[in-house]
C-alpha cells in the first residue's frame, strides 16, 4: 500500500534549448481557487500578489467542465479553495458536480461566511471533507493576524461542520507570533473534534515574503514546536492526526515541492489559468494556458509552463548530478526564483546551493526585538512595486 499526499512557466519561445519530453505522470489532485475574494487579509496569504477581480472569475459551467476534464486525466481529488470559496454562490453546484463524477471533494475555508444551512447543503451535495483555518488560539492575536474579527465565528463554524457530520481538519499556519500557542492549538483541535491538524509553516514567497521578518521563527521556537508535536502524536494516536513540516529555512535539503513540478498536481486560478502550483504566477517568465481556451488534458501534457520544470532534464548543477534529484525535484521553483532571480537555480534552502547565503540575511534578523507591522493582503496592488528578485524585497516594503 502506498500513501501519497495530494495537496500544494513554460520556456520562453526565445529559448534555444527545448527539453525533451519527460514521462507524464497521472496527476492526483486539482486545487480549484474559485475566487480571490476573501474577507480576511492574512499577511502570509498564498494567493498571488496580483489578485483577480470578481469580473474575471470563470463561470459555473467552465468550472464543471474543468472538473470533468480533470477526472478524464486521472485526477482523484478536488480541493476547493480561494480566497474564500464560500464567497461563490455556486459552490454547492460545483461541489455536487465534482462529487457526482467521482472526485473526492475538500473545502478549504476560513469559516467566516458560512452558516449551518449551507453546510448541510454541502453535505447533501456530497462534500467529503472540510478544512478550517485558525490563525491563533488567542482570539485577539488571531483577529490581528487575519486582519478581520472572525475568530469566534471560525470556532462556531468548526462546531457546525462536525454537527452536520462532515470530517474536519484544522489548518494552523504557525510562525514567530503564534508558535508559543502550539500546545493550545493541538488542544483546540481535539476539543473541536477534528480528525486532523495541519501545522503548516509560512512559505516565503508572495505576500509572506513581504512579511518575512514578522513571521520567521527562531530555531529555539522550532525545536520546541517539534518536541510538542512529537509528544502529541504519541499521546493522540487514533484521536488526532498531526501533519507537521519543519520550515525549510532551517532544513539542509529542500522540500519536494508539489511532489515535483507537473507530476501530481495542478492548480486552476479564479480566472481559469492552469498552474503547476498555486504560487507559480510569481514566475514572471512563464506563460500559462487557460481552461477557457484549451482542454485540461492538453494543458497537462503540452503547456509550456508544465514542461518547463517537469522531470530533471532542465536541471543545472548542483541538482543535475545529485542523487536526490528525483526525491526533491530541485525544491520549490517559486522560492528559488524569488530569492535568487535565477529561474533554474536549485532551491536555496539546499546546503549545496551557491545561493544558500540569501537565507542567512533573514535568518540573522530572526528574534530581533522589533517586529515589523504586517503588510496585509489586499486586492489593489500597484504592479511596479511588486518584488520578484531578492533585491526587490526591499523595494516592496517602501
Amino acid at each position, binding site marked *: *500500500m502506498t500513501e*501519497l499526499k495530494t495537496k500544494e512557466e513554460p520556456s520562453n519561445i526565445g529559448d534555444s534549448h527545448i527539453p525533451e519530453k519527460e514521462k507524464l505522470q497521472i496527476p492526483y489532485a486539482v486545487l480549484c481557487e474559485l475566487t480571490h475574494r476573501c474577507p480576511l487579509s492574512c499577511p502570509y496569504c498564498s494567493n498571488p500578489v496580483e489578485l483577480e477581480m470578481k469580473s474575471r472569475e470563470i463561470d459555473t459551467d467552465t468550472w464543471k467542465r474543468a472538473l470533468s476534464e480533470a477526472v478524464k486525466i*486521472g485526477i482523484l481529488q478536488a480541493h476547493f479553495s480561494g480566497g474564500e470559496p464560500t464567497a461563490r454562490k455556486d459552490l454547492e453546484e460545483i461541489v455536487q458536480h465534482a462529487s457526482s463524477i467521482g472526485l473526492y471533494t475538500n473545502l478549504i475555508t476560513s469559516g467566516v461566511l458560512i452558516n449551518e444551512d449551507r453546510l448541510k447543503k454541502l453535505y447533501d451535495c456530497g462534500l*467529503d*471533507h472540510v478544512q478550517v483555518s485558525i490563525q491563533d488560539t488567542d482570539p485577539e492575536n488571531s483577529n490581528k493576524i487575519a486582519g478581520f474579527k472572525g475568530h469566534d465565528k471560525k470556532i462556531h463554524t468548526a462546531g457546525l461542520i462536525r454537527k452536520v457530520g462532515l470530517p474536519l481538519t484544522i489548518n494552523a499556519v504557525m510562525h514567530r507570533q503564534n508558535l508559543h500557542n502550539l500546545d493550545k492549538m493541538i488542544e483546540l483541535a481535539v476539543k473541536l473534534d477534528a*480528525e486532523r491538524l495541519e501545522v503548516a509553516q509560512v512559505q516565503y514567497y508572495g505576500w509572506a515574503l513581504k512579511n518575512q521578518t514578522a513571521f520567521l521563527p527562531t530555531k529555539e521556537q522550532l525545536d520546541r514546536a517539534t518536541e510538542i508535536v512529537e509528544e502529541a502524536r504519541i499521546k493522540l*494516536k*487514533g*484521536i488526532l492526526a498531526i501533519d507537521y513540516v519543519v520550515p525549510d529555512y532551517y532544513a539542509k535539503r529542500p522540500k519536494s515541492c508539489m511532489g515535483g513540478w507537473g507530476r501530481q498536481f495542478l492548480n486552476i486560478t479564479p480566472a481559469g489559468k492552469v498552474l503547476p502550483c498555486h504560487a507559480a504566477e510569481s514566475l514572471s517568465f512563464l506563460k500559462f494556458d487557460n481552461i477557457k481556451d484549451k482542454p485540461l488534458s492538453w494543458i497537462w501534457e503540452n503547456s509550456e509552463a508544465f514542461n518547463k520544470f517537469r522531470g530533471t532534464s532542465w536541471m543545472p548543477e548542483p541538482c543535475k548530478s545529485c542523487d536526490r534529484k528525483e526525491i526533491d525535484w530541485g525544491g520549490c521553483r517559486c522560492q528559488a526564483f524569488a530569492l535568487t532571480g535565477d529561474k533554474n537555480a536549485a532551491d536555496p534552502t539546499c546546503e549545496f546551493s551557491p545561493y544558500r547565503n540569501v537565507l542567512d540575511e533573514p535568518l540573522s534578523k530572526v528574534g530581533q526585538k522589533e517586529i515589523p507591522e504586517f503588510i496585509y493582503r489586499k486586492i489593489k496592488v500597484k504592479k511596479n512595486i511588486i518584488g520578484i528578485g531578492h533585491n526587490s524585497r526591499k523595494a516592496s516594503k517602501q
Partner: protein
Amino acid sequence: MTNLLTLNEKHIPKLPRHAKLRYDEPRKKWIINAPERVFELDEIASEIIQLVNGESSIEIIINELTEKFDGAPRDVISKDVIIMLQSLADKGFIVI
C-alpha cells in the same frame, strides 16, 4: 489511550465517511481517497479492502480469503489482514 482501536477478529471494520474506496481506471488500481491523501492499494490490500463492508467481521474476511486463496495458511492470511487494517485504523481510515 482508551480510544485507541486495536483490531481483533471479532471487530467489524468499515471505512469512515471521509475515506472512500474505488477502482481507478487510469491507474488500474484500487485506491482509498482520504483528506489530502491517496492510498494506492497493492494486490493483497485490494483483496482485503473489497471485503470490508461494515457487515463482515475480520474473522469472516479472513475465512473468505483463506477459501479464495486455497493453500495459503490461515494464520498467514490472518496476520496480513490485521496488519493492513490496523495500519489504516491507526490513521483513522478504518473504524468499527
